[in-house]
């Protein structure tokens, strides 16, 4: 089963601390949503509001069109998959998975059949009689997923479920989680602070910071067209170059920076006024060779300071000729030869450059975040 979720102006305060500040979000049925942000950003608070473990100080939450105020966790069409698995240690896997159905008074034979079907889905059919302590971390995680899905919730809430697993297992579980979500069609709301995990599994990512939503969109959108400096820097390495909007036309924003003046095609939602200070956000992999197809802009020459090899690319630090105190991080092709002291051209496709309002607070000019 599946259902849409709608969060309207939800605020949650703990004493003087505002954990969640007027957050509104619409989630459609069957969507895989990832709430992404650093610890303390309010993502887990939002999840607890959905699960009913906390109630909002103000604002409302609707699941399947029904207001969830005063609905206890047990009565909500949601189940939660906890970070520490929270399996029942004294029960077999079959009884663990069947527990929710038992609470709903489903007959023994029927609930055991359903439990075995779900254990089969997560690849643990032959272990149905085992106890949780006999399993590895990844297997316990699968049982927790099967247990949460056994009651056919409309919405599954996942509280950093992969946080305790090692990297390789985490990548594998991400794939499985995504495949299972597509199969069952349940709305998944997944909390994580790992942006790679978010990009790997989400239909839509919700970037949160300090109790507010910074950005919402598909992984591609959030990565390539972030709407805030926080969102841009949280999703991966980025160069911020401060500038001023000199002129504005239908086809270009003319921006003056310490590295020269460039024309950037305007994006749909960029309500910048002439003369305002803006920041150019440039991903390290968007620097490219000056020859080749497509439009090109340049930020002048830069000297290679150092470089290291990352397998898929070389990561190099560059200092621009026009503003040597600035450090630019760029990814160079795998086959490039990185020679410290060499000069390169800072060439870019203008469509890959994102214009964001204002300077990053407390961040030194031109630094890489």
């Amino acid at each position, binding site marked *: 089963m599946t259902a849409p979720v709608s969060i309207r102006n939800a605020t949650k305060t703990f004493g003087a601390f505002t954990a969640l500040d007027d957050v509104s979000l619409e989630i459609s049925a069957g969507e895989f949503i990832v709430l992404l942000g650093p610890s303390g950003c309010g993502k887990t608070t939002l999840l607890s509001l959905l699960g009913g473990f906390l109630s909002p100080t103000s604002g409302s939450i609707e699941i399947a069109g029904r207001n969830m105020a005063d609905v206890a966790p*047990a009565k909500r069409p*949601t189940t939660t998959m906890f970070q520490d698995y*929270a399996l*029942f240690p004294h029960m077999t896997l079959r009884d663990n998975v069947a527990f929710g159905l038992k*609470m709903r008074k489903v007959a023994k034979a029927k609930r055991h059949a359903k439990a075995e079907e779900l254990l089969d889905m997560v690849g643990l059919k032959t272990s149905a009689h085992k106890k949780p302590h006999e399993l590895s971390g990844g297997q316990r995680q699968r049982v927790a997923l099967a*247990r949460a899905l056994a009651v056919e919730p409309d919405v599954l809430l996942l509280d950093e479920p992969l946080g305790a697993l090692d990297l390789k297992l985490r990548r594998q579980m991400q794939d499985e989680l995504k495949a299972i979500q597509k199969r069952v069609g349940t709305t998944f709301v997944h909390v994580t602070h790992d942006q790679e995990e978010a990009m790997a599994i989400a239909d839509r990512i919700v970037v949160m910071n300090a109790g507010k939503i910074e950005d919402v969109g598909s992984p591609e959108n959030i990565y390539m067209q972030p709407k805030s400096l926080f969102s841009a820097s949280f999703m991966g390495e980025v160069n911020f170059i401060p500038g001023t909007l000199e002129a504005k036309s239908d086809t270009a924003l003319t921006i003056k920076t310490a590295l020269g003046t460039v024309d950037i095609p305007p994006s749909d939602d960029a309500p910048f006024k002439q003369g305002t200070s803006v920041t150019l956000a440039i991903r390290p992999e968007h620097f490219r060779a000056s020859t080749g197809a497509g439009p090109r802009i340049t930020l002048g020459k830069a000297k290679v300071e150092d470089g290291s090899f990352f397998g898929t690319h070389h990561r190099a630090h560059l200092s621009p000729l026009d503003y040597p105190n600035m450090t630019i991080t760029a990814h160079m092709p795998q086959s490039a030869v990185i020679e410290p002291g060499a000069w390169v051209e800072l060439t870019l496709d203008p469509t890959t450059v994102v214009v964001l309002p204002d300077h990053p607070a407390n961040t030194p000019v031109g630094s890489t975040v």
Partner: protein
Amino acid sequence: MISSRISKLLSWSYLIALYGFIFLPVAVLVLFSFQDGRLPVPPFNGATLKWYGEVFADSRLMSALGNSLMVAIGSASVACVLGFCAAYGLARFVLPASRLQRGLLIAPMTVSYLIIALGLLTTFNWIGVSLSLWTVGIGHVVINLPLCFAIIYASMGDHQKNIERAARDLGAAEWQVMTQISAPMLMPSILAAFFLSVTFSWDEFIIAFLLSRFDVTLPVEIWSMLRSGLNPKTNAVGSVVFLVSVALLLLLELIVFRRTAKK
């Protein structure tokens, strides 16, 4: 070289003295329960099982033994249920003055059994409850409840809290969380509390003496036997009491600690 020998000798003598001090009285008691003669005092005249035969043939002793078992198991069960409920409430919910409540629950541990017995005796007289095995059982619940509460409360951690939250999330009502999740998870400590309570109730004299009338427990029956003088039969029944206590502790060790080790 010599000093190390001396220190070794000293530590061994200390060890032997220590265990001798603890176990010699019990060993003497058990030894003279086999005494072939009228008096349980040296010299030891040879072994016989006669006195054990008399113990098991004595209907008053046997009914007292039955009473003791009943009171011990009954009061320990009640103390465990109450202790578990109190521990669950205080560990899982924000209650007013919970520190004070915890303190009040554990306080009877520091009060002497004589005072508790006198207090209960006065109370029962005042409200007009006549003395019976029931009143003895109530007295034993009073002394064992703090112990049960303390043992069970100490084993309730935050990890189990999350597991209980998961059960509630899956649709379990509060009583279902308690009976199907919390209690089974805490079973090792609940069993430990139960067996210790049974042992304490089994051995307890002063409350059982002051709060009983016609039906009495085994320690009270033994005491009235002792008033007519020493006799190898009292040694035999004492040995039986000791054996049951040891059996209970072994059972605790086997059931509870083996269970914990497995996890």
